[in-house]
């Protein structure tokens, strides 16, 4: 039998993207010329190493012994009773080291960087989760790590900033534009243009220029492969519906991808509806946006009539992004996946419910998925199953939630 990593890197399921990185009309390589050679170098290296037995063995070992995979599949009995419909099971990515699925997508790229002889990695981060995951793997491989983070986010995520520094990373506060995640991504791209020779850019989501959306999906699809196997082992059937939150969309893509050929499995991506999709205070690029070009790819995004990217709002920093991975845009337009919105308030209610009913403190991002799963399960039969990707844990959000409740810690 193939090892988990071998399964991860074989692409028997779908032919996307094409050789130019296009998912239908989406994806591609929209970057300044200076980066074209580096992206080509990355594509070539990824093609080579993902077939290399030594690389695969190391990646396998890291996933099991460093990350502690597989993550459990957990039947949320009291949440199921509360919803009053289909069985709700949780894929426990919240149990990963560094607190979320993000580590799946830093272990692999860091190993790739190491094999490519790059001594320096850079990353962008919003809430700090991807920054911490990048700093973690860089420390372990003895690489220099620079993380770009919007100045506003540096202010509101002080603990993660310090965590990254503890791990030896340099954190740069980005003062341009809206001083949040999208600006951090711009700044990381600027760093990469300047230091292309020695630097590997670990993008934190399934966005960016080709091959990033494909590569990040592949590394995260360990989530879906495990979940599929676990469902068959535990319940002898596939789930009827998958639910995952979507900011850039890496945890959702990681869960969805291995299920794409399973036509009976419905897929729901849950975007941050903030104060409501009919207001301008949300981050729902698939529900309320339109196709455009941002950060190296063609995808759904939120912009004004002049094509200027608009600022987004969500109670969860990890969903606060005006674009989305191009493969999600493709899944939306082909109808294979549905995208829905959950408001700040609904997500907060789900956060509290999961704390009280299951003893699990979820990340605010993942709370969006939980909130939708409750609604969805209620419309389904008890013999059906909704599989929710619980992408992260909520330690990082305790302060935010307390503040919203008017409690000073």
């Amino acid at each position, binding site marked *: 039998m193939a090892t988990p990593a071998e399964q991860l890197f074989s692409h028997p399921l779908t032919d996307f993207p094409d050789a*130019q990185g296009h998912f239908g009309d989406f994806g*591609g*390589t*929209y*970057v*300044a*010329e*200076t*980066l*074209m*050679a*580096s992206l*080509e170098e990355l594509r070539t290296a990824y093609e080579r190493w993902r077939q290399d037995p030594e690389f695969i063995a190391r990646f396998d070992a890291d996933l099991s012994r460093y990350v502690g995979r597989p993550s459990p599949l957990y039947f949320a009995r009291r949440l199921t009773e509360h919803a009053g419909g289909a069985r709700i099971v949780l894929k426990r990515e919240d149990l990963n080291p560094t607190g979320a699925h993000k580590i799946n997508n830093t272990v692999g790229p860091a190993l790739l960087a190491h094999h490519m002889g790059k001594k320096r990695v850079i990353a962008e981060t919003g809430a700090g989760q991807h920054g911490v995951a990048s700093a973690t793997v860089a420390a372990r491989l003895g690489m220099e790590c620079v993380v770009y983070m919007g100045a506003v986010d540096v202010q509101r995520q002080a603990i993660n900033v310090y965590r990254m520094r503890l791990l030896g990373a340099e954190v740069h506060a980005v003062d*341009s*534009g809206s001083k949040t995640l*999208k*600006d951090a*991504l*711009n700044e990381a*791209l*600027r760093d990469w*243009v*300047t*230091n*292309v*020779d020695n630097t590997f850019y670990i993008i934190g989501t399934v966005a960016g220029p080709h091959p990033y959306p494909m590569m990040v999906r592949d590394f995260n699809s360990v989530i879906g492969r495990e979940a599929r196997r676990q469902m068959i082992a535990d319940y002898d059937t596939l789930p009827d519906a998958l639910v995952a939150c979507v900011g850039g969309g890496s945890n959702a893509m990681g869960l969805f991808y291995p299920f794409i050929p399973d036509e009976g499995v419905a897929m729901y991506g849950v975007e941050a509806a903030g104060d409501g999709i009919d207001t301008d205070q949300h981050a729902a690029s698939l529900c309320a946006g339109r*196709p*455009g*070009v*941002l*950060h*190296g790819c*063609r995808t759904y*995004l939120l*912009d004004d*009539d*002049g*094509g*200027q*990217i608009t600022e987004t709002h969500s109670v969860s920093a990890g969903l606060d992004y005006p674009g989305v991975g191009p493969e999600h845009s493709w899944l939306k337009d082909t109808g294979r996946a549905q995208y829905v919105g959950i408001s700040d308030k609904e997500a907060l209610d789900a956060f509290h419910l999961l704390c009280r009913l299951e003893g699990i403190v979820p990340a605010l991002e993942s709370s969006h998925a939980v909130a939708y799963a409750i609604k969805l399960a209620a419309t389904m039969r008890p013999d059906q199953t909704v599989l929710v990707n619980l992408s992260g844990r909520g330690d990082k959000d305790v302060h935010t939630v307390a503040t919203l409740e008017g409690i000073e810690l």
Partner: protein
Amino acid sequence: MSRIPAVFDALKQSGRTALIPYVTAGDPGVEATVPVLLAMAEQGADILELGIPFSDPMADGPVIQKACERALECGVDLSQVLAMVREFREQNQDTPIVLMGYMNPIERYGAQRLAKDAQAAGVDALLIVDLPPEEAGVLRQELAAAELDEIFLVAPTTTDARCAVIAEKASGFIYYVALKGVTGAGHADYSGLAEPINQLRRHTDLPIGVGFGISDAASACEVAAVADAVVIGTSLVDQLSQASDKAQAVAIAAQFIAPIRAALDEQSQLKTAASG
């Protein structure tokens, strides 16, 4: 019909190097842009690059980022940029204008509509920073139909094979990015510039302009030794940001262009004299 080929033909006859200044449309102030463009043409700028402001200019350094932010605060959009070109053309029918920007505002405006409106306004070429030739398909057809040139970038990292592809698709001139970095990055080292430029010339007869990092007469002359055109953006935008009104902006632009023009011409005269 683009004015760019005729400009380079004339310069070649007289042995001079083209001077191409860049300003962001609407900075400093919406009223300043057209007078600044006119003044620069008068002081001897051969081609003008006009930046379309964008919220996420990922290939630009802090100076042009701030210029974009200021322009966007004034509400400058692509329609207004085209209006500025129309106004410029009322007084200047000869100096080519290259619109430079990022893809999303162009996508939102519509490729076909933009090609038509840009041509009508008197634009000569487009340079879209985040649109490499691989992705340029639809826009390319529209620009060709409107007889507008499409300027592509070549970087120090561009392989020889890609240079050939880019050269085949480019028109007007080719813009060689002199350094690995964003606009306005520290002073580049131009001593090794001859080799990549000569290598690029093996793929094309188009003129080659060089930009990124050029800030004054001295660096312009260094580049002019091997290039057909010198592009200067950040240091000009930086100086313009000091202007408190339109008149001051015009004065700053004129004072910026004049000495560089003089130095470039002096150098080309020496070259002509030496070879004659």
